[in-house]
């Protein structure tokens, strides 16, 4: 069974929008954020119109219902990534908060080392820079090869006995590269380091099984996987999350509070201070249902085919250079490129005049841009509702851009 993309597109009202009268939207900015199906928007509205209440400890009917919906969403997310235990799913506001949480609670000190890669999103780089500054630990990184892959030759040099944390991205939002989690994780395990995986760009596009990955922590974010903004997920092994200290303090994360001191609630509440993003969790649950119904293998197969089509078509465009893997193995559907002599701003702006939405800039991965000698790129990225027609529009648009400026 494969994806019926025409039917899928009917679920996404925004895809019918015209950017300007007569100019339909061609949305190729999915690595920045995905669009939302009606099923998710209905779940949000239903929540607010029928069940809205603060969760936990409330005993009236609305509070019972809201709690059941919120905790039900946790069950759905746990099943989606095959967590061994629902308590391992912590709701945060986005991926960035999940990664920062780890950067605050994992034990680090002078002499310790944290290893990242040169292709990290700023959200999995800056928190570790800040943590190293706070604790006196040292930041190291694995470099990149010319064709957009991790330079695994660096691995043994960079990861040593002093390494306490290895944090890296599953699928790069700039290059599209899918990293060999097993190789990096095995090396990290061999030195006893915690393994943190930034799965912000993988969970929305492929089936991710957190147990099979053999890592300690995984972060991902609702808005990139057809869910609402304002919600992210930290998955972590229960035994580790149980040992680690709390991050944010407040309502719901406590067991017993006196003025003199407090004790912490059991997982996952220990890491969920204050009123959580209740409606957003419910919306994310609906998104997970939606993706599960379609089948993540189907989503992945569709995007894989589309990426092949796009890589091929883009390489026909005169003066276009792809930044990242040019072959379709171990890569996802985010494709960055440079157009000879034309600034990405101008590429993006002219494409927008034709309704084509791509992203231009450093995509919060400036070190990787510097590595490839470009201050910025143009990036087109697909999702489950993208079509070859979208790619054709892009390629025609790029030809137009080239003619316009020469």
């Amino acid at each position, binding site marked *: 069974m494969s994806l019926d993309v025409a039917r899928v597109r009917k679920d996404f009202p925004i895809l019918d929008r015209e950017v300007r009268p007569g100019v339909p939207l061609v949305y190729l900015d999915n690595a920045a954020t995905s669009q939302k199906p009606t099923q998710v928007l209905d779940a949000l509205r239903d929540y607010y119109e029928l069940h809205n209440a603060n969760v936990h400890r409330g005993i009236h009917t609305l509070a019972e219902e809201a709690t059941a919906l919120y905790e039900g969403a946790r069950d759905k997310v746990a099943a989606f990534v095959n967590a061994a235990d629902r308590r391992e799913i912590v709701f945060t506001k986005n991926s960035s908060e999940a990664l920062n949480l780890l950067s605050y609670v994992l034990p680090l000190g002078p002499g310790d080392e944290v290893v990242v890669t040169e292709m990290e999103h700023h959200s999995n780089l800056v928190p570790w820079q800040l943590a190293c500054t706070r604790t006196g630990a040292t930041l190291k990184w694995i470099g990149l090869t010319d064709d957009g892959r991790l330079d695994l030759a660096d691995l043994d040099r960079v990861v040593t006995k002093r390494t306490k944390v290895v944090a890296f991205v599953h699928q790069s939002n700039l290059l599209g590269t899918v990293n060999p989690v097993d190789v990096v994780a095995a090396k990290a395990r061999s030195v006893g380091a915690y393994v943190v995986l930034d799965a912000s760009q993988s969970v929305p596009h492929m089936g991710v099984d957190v147990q099979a990955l053999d890592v300690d922590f995984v972060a991902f974010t609702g808005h990139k996987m057809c869910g609402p903004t304002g919600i992210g997920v930290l998955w972590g092994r229960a035994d580790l999350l149980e040992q680690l200290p709390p991050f944010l303090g407040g309502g719901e994360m406590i067991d017993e509070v006196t003025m003199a001191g407090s004790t912490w609630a059991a997982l996952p509440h220990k890491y969920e201070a204050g009123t959580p993003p209740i409606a957003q969790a419910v919306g994310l649950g609906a998104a997970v249902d939606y993706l599960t119904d379609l089948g993540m293998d189907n989503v992945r197969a569709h995007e894989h085919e589309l990426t092949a089509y796009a890589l091929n078509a883009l390489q026909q465009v005169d003066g276009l250079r792809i930044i990242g893997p040019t072959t379709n193995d171990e890569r996802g559907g985010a494709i960055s490129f440079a157009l000879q002599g034309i600034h990405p701003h101008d590429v993006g702006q002219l494409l927008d005049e034709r309704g084509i939405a791509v992203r231009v800039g450093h995509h919060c991965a400036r070190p990787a841009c510097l590595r490839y000698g*470009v201050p910025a790129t143009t990036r087109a990225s697909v999702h489950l509702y993208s079509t070859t027609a979208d790619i054709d529009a892009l390629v025609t648009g790029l030809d137009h851009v080239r003619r316009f400026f020469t």
Partner: protein
Amino acid sequence: MTDESIYQEIILDHYKHPHHRGLREPFEAEVRHLNPTCGDEITLRVHLTGRTVEDVSYDGEGCSISQASASVMTDLLIGKTVDDALSIHDEFLRLMHSRGELEPDEDVLEDAVAFRGVSRLTARVKCALLAWMAWKDAVSQASGTAGDTGAGATSEGAA
């Protein structure tokens, strides 16, 4: 290209055939400004004679909007008194922060009125302003050292 396009003929002309481009001597101040988001970058020099903007020379990389804006700016400011140049600068800033609402004064801004469309796009306003911010920075440094010749003060700034 639609009517609403920010790529007005004037802007494209300046982008393809920039005026006063290249770094020249003498100058009293040189600055480098950059926009780390997109890598736009400009190095700009100012040469004053008394209270007159004798020369503005520049080099750099960037999108058509930032390049054309530098070219248009030099046309407007070279030869003016510092006071007149500053009031043109202020007028251009007002236009760029108007979100397309202001009817620009063509007598004052000349070719720069073509940037009105850009002012609707918050993400691009920075591009159009890069050269102007650099010039303001350079001229305030040069005013401190006006009258000196040769290699003046050099500074770096981020836009």
